[in-house]
């Protein structure tokens, strides 16, 4: 390749800078730190070795601010509108099918596995798009309390959820963990899989072109071991969803999350593998993880 590009008359390809996605913008780490990921495939304009931002604690804190700023607007949109945006995301993912497959193959997947993963991810996005305006009907209740009251219980989003996404499946892992959190109105901060976050960045480009408001999903690149505990201790974060086979990291974030009574959910290798399953990898249970039940006693009388 190097020799070829030196040849007169050849066009030099424009390689992409891979960045984190925070508050709707693609940014480098404030720390200036980076790490390198290598591997390329035919059809990619990228260099053999690319520099990835190594997200810092400050980046995580900035992402929390972005997620918090987006929280009210996102959660107060109609459920139908959130569903529309997720469906738009499915459309955009489908339109970048080949690019996503190429990226997954570059990260080590076989061509056929990558094809299945992208297809499943698109279909899963459609599934979550469709549940947006049914969650309440499935979970809420009228409570037949005694006395002159109209009692009811409704689900509300927990607030800000930090997600440590699984390394693999990469794309399907992001779709399977982010969508059930945001479909109900949560906003989130996601730590992308460390070994090759390039697919995650492409996914962010899809988010950015899906009418999803900036700040609803914020994706950091870097080390889960470094960022996870910072996120677990951050008091403005209400929920934590950690997907890693690393038992000690799971235990650590569970313990760190206790300091602010976070809703901490951790998942090991078995649960990560199950994400590939068309049925076990999605469901109302995924949405329920980051919902709060609000019970209201409304007066009834003249």
């Amino acid at each position, binding site marked *: 390749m190097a020799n070829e590009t030196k040849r007169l008359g050849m066009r030099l390809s424009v390689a992409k800078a891979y960045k984190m996605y925070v508050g709707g913008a693609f940014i480098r780490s404030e720390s200036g730190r980076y790490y390198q990921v290598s591997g390329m495939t035919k059809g990619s304009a990228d260099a053999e070795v690319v520099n990835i931002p190594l997200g810092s604690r400050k980046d995580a804190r900035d992402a929390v601010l972005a997620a918090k700023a987006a929280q009210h607007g996102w959660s107060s949109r109609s459920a139908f509108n959130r569903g529309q945006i997720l469906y738009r995301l499915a459309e955009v993912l489908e339109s970048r099918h080949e690019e996503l497959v190429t990226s997954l193959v570059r990260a080590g997947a076989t061509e056929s596995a990558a094809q299945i993963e992208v297809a499943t991810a698109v279909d899963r996005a459609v599934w979550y798009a469709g549940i947006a305006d049914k969650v309440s009907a499935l979970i809420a*209740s009228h409570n037949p*309390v005694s006395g002159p009251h109209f009692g009811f219980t409704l689900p509300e989003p927990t607030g800000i959820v930090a997600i440590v996404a699984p390394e693999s499946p990469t794309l399907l892992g992001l779709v399977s963990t982010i969508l059930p959190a945001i479909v109900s109105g949560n906003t989130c901060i996601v730590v992308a899989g460390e070994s090759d976050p390039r697919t995650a960045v492409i996914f962010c480009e899809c988010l950015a072109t899906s009418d999803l408001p900036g700040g609803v999903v914020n994706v950091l690149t870097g080390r889960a071991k470094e960022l996870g505990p910072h996120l677990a201790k951050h008091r403005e974060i209400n929920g934590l969803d950690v997907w890693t086979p690393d*038992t000690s990291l*799971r235990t650590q974030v569970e*313990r760190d999350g206790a300091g602010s*009574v976070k*809703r901490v959910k951790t998942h090991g290798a078995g649960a990560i593998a199950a994400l590939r399953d068309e049925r076990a990898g999605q469901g109302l249970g995924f949405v*329920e993880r980051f919902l709060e039940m609000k019970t*209201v*006693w409304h007066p009834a009388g003249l």
Partner: protein
Amino acid sequence: MATQRKSIKRADAAKIAASEPDLGFTGESLWPYAPSPESTDHVVLQKRYELFIGGKWVTPKSKKYFATINPATEQVIAEVAEGNAADMDAAVRAARSAYEKIWSKMRPSERAKYIYRIARAIQEKARELAIVESMDGGKPIKESRDFDVPTASAHFFYHAGWADKLDLAFHGRPYRSLGVAGQIIPWNFPLLMAAWKIAPALACGNTVVLKPAETTPLTALLLAKIFEEIELPPGVVNIVTGARATGAALVAHPDVNKIAFTGSTDVGKRIQAEVAGTGKRLTLELGGKAANIVFADAPLDQAVDGIVNGIYFNQGHVCCAGSRLLVEESVHDIVVRKLRDRVATMRVGDPLDKNTDIGAINSKMQLDKIREMVAAGETEGAERWSSPCALPKKGYFFPPTFFTNVAQSSRIAREEIFGPVLSVLTFRTPDEALEKANNTMYGLSAGIWTDKGAKIFWMAQRLQAGVIWANTFNKFDPSSPFGGYKESGFGREGGRQGLSAYVEVG
């Protein structure tokens, strides 16, 4: 108590009544009541209570007992076994064996009938349970009789009905029980909290090890007697009394599948950290600092009664107590005046007296905590008003108290006092009310008082709290899910949503 009050001449009473709207109550009762104590003749307490493990009353391996006292008289009413880690192990083994051999295998409709039996037996023994609850914990008999005991029974009735309908509860999704549930409950509603914990656990097919609070173990032990009498299979519910170390042994036990805790946020955080990495399921119902928001358009007399019920119910030993009163500025003065007049008529004294509104503070330790917080309120510059009511000479009592001119930043506006102490703050707009109401790490409950239904919904949508009462406060029902947002905990108790705490749903 009432006999100590000086009676007021009819003419004086008329004069005072004529001075409305400022009644100028001095704490002297206009209408002296004769003492009306509930008779305790019917109740026979044992001198000493053992642990209830595997359907038997067993002496603790610790060989230790502790005294439980009546906080209204400071007299010992019984000795109770103090379980240690070995006792806890025996209880968990009994629960595991009952789970595997009996309870998880039993037809759900049979499980339901056992739970119905418990509910009925509580009704039949209501009077005994109410008296012992008031003796052991200090709460007024009218509350234990009319609220704690009937609501406890109602929780068993409600959940009995779920036991054979779980397949309907989760939209056909697969579900399974968890196994052994370790439950730790507080001293403010001893029997009711036991019911909130045990009823859904049993309905969902789990077995239980329950650790009652150190200062109020008796009604849980009477409940164990009920389990014996209704022939609940041995080991399905085990009761291990003790203090903090006993509870810690339950949390730490490796063969417990689920921990359910109701208590302070500090202890809840420690438990959450403790279970990290163990795979144990956890639900927490922790502290609160609820805002009770009164708009100028509220029916004010009704609101004042709601404020009183919100903070002085059960001596303020209520995690969802409306301990921060947010009043719209334009009606602040009149609300405070009405509140003072109303609170001055409240009768503090013998918990067993049917006329008593506010009973004894649960323990010396809690009384010290309340005193410390009230002193902090005064130091920080808030204006204190305490009812001038007479207090009994013996026992732990504190007069109903409120503070005005309270700064948002002061301790009495931020920290849970868990006593009959209210902080009054003001607001000018609904947005400001929301801002102040949500400005807390807690999120258990909130109250809204207004005449406008739309305003109730608007506020309810924005308040960060798990339970919102509008034009009422401190209402509970087994069909109504209860639990917190933020650092008030997670998980719900009651209603269909409460079942999720005791099953794994696919």
